[in-house]
């Protein structure tokens, strides 16, 4: 009993430690990556005793700056809700990681440790539910700020998130049909199969269209460019105008954590989760030819590393998209969501149904 609690706590420490650190580094990566993409050098001036380390001290400098700033609550605003909103943003983004499996079941000292914090049987529904809960932080932030522009911004954000949620949830239906489960651990495990004996049966193979829809909708959920209408600091005013200091940082971090969460969910649903092609619990193998046995612990370490690398890749890719595309206009945004993504998601569900039925039949 005690050991179980300790193991769970260890897993929580591992996952959240990793996620929060990646989120911090993403702040740096965002600057540096955009700079490299635009032939610039990027922030590199923060130094400790002359040591610059490619600007890696900038996140620390940011934190120091933000913590020492005044925490301002609008006099006419709702003090409680105003304080609650940023933490809700952080919480809903972080909670998603509870159900994302980051490795195969670990057999150690006679115990089976599933490498997921909470193996919920609602799995992917939990992820979608917490994605939707994120709207509360947006709406509450706008509402409690006592600022009509913030309120309008939060309305805009809520409309966007709700619109894209439909396409998001519908695109997941295809994955559920393909693997016959809503549990993320089952989905990740089922992606260890091979089609035609050699191609890994990853979600992106089973659901190429579904992947595109999911990725577009999930980008919209993270509220970043090209879907950053809720924020768009350069012209229309967003919902966290009245936030300063640490609470602003909480929104900012929440956004990065959402990016990692989306990367994690995309990896789990469409890119094999922790599966590495041609490596399974027996070891490295070429289908139908030979097998090189590997120790269990090594396999698990490879798989966890592969999962982290895949997540990092998608974080990189989302930053790439964010620095490539211009922002949608609001009518384009709504049109894209309702008139394009949603019908396409329906089409994907129907097509997948027909294809899976005909293969089974």
């Amino acid at each position: 009993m005690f050991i179980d609690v300790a193991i769970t706590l260890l897993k929580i420490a591992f996952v959240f430690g990793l996620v929060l650190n990646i989120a911090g580094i993403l702040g740096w990566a965002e600057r540096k990556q955009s700079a490299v993409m635009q032939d610039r050098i990027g922030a590199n001036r923060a130094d400790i005793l002359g040591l610059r380390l490619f600007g890696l001290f900038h996140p620390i400098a940011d934190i120091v700056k933000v913590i020492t700033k005044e925490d301002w609550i609008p006099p006419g605003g709702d003090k409680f809700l105003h304080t609650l909103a940023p933490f809700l943003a952080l919480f809903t983004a972080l909670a998603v990681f509870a159900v994302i499996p980051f490795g195969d079941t670990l057999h150690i000292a006679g115990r089976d440790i599933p490498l997921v914090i909470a193996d919920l049987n609602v799995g992917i529904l939990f992820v979608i539910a917490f994605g939707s809960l994120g709207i509360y932080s947006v709406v509450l932030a706008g509402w409690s700020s006592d600022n009509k522009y913030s309120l309008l911004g939060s309305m805009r954000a809520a409309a966007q998130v709700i619109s894209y949620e439909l396409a998001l949830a519908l695109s997941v239906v295809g994955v559920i049909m393909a693997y016959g489960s809503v549990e993320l651990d089952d989905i990740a495990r089922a992606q260890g199969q091979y089609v035609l004996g050699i191609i890994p049966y990853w979600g992106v193979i089973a659901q190429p269209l579904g992947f595109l829809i999911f990725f577009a909708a999930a980008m919209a959920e993270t509220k970043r460019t090209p879907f950053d209408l809720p924020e768009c600091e350069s012209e229309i005013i967003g919902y966290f105008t009245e936030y300063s200091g640490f609470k602003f940082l909480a929104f900012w971090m929440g956004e990065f954590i959402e990016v990692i969460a989306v990367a994690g969910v995309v990896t789990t649903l469409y890119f094999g989760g922790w599966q590495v092609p041609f490596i399974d619990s027996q070891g490295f193998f070429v289908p139908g030819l030979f097998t090189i046995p590997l120790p269990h612990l090594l396999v698990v370490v490879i798989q966890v590393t592969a999962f982290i690398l895949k997540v990092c890749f998608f974080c990189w890719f989302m930053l790439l998209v964010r620095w490539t595309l211009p922002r949608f206009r609001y009518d384009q945004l709504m049109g894209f969501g309702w008139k394009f993504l949603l019908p396409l998601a329906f089409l994907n569900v129907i097509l997948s149904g027909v294809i899976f039925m005909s293969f089974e039949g």
Partner: protein
Amino acid sequence: MKIVGHKLSFLENIYLFEIVRGLVITTRHFFYNMFFHIAHLLGYQQDVEAAVTIQYPEQTIPVSKRWRGVHRINTRPDGSPRCVACMLCETVCPVQCIHIVAEEHPDPAIEKYPVSFEVDVTRCCWCGMCEEACPVDAIYMDSGKIPKAGYSRQDLVYDKETLTKEVPLPGYQRSLNPPGAGAPKVNPMGL
């Protein structure tokens, strides 16, 4: 009025291919620059630029020969400032950033000299009128320098000593009189 609209074709309308095209461009830039950044770090390919950034203040670009930089007070052969504290520059300065305190000079031919001569570069608009107004060619803007950032306002008020120490940029078209050249004593009235 003629409204020129661009009708999107079907492929453009579903965004996907346009997005991929954009991503290919940015990815190419990313990997190209990253390759050379890493190569530079390892000491290779130093002659290929990985970024267009100029790391000011360690790096600067050459300025034009006629460009107005930080002021310089020209000197007489004995090293004292040529300024005769006539106040013309202070008067002509549109933003009133020159402050001169005049004092009687022991030499009656010179009449006056500045006890203090301050240029507040935070306010200066680099118009060059002070330079043109000066009857004795005492103030020039030919140092070719951009004022450095300072931690206080007082850091950016340059005094007589600082301004006298500035040297003209070689080949600069503004320097008619290099430091220490010209007549030893200048009588503004030409007497």
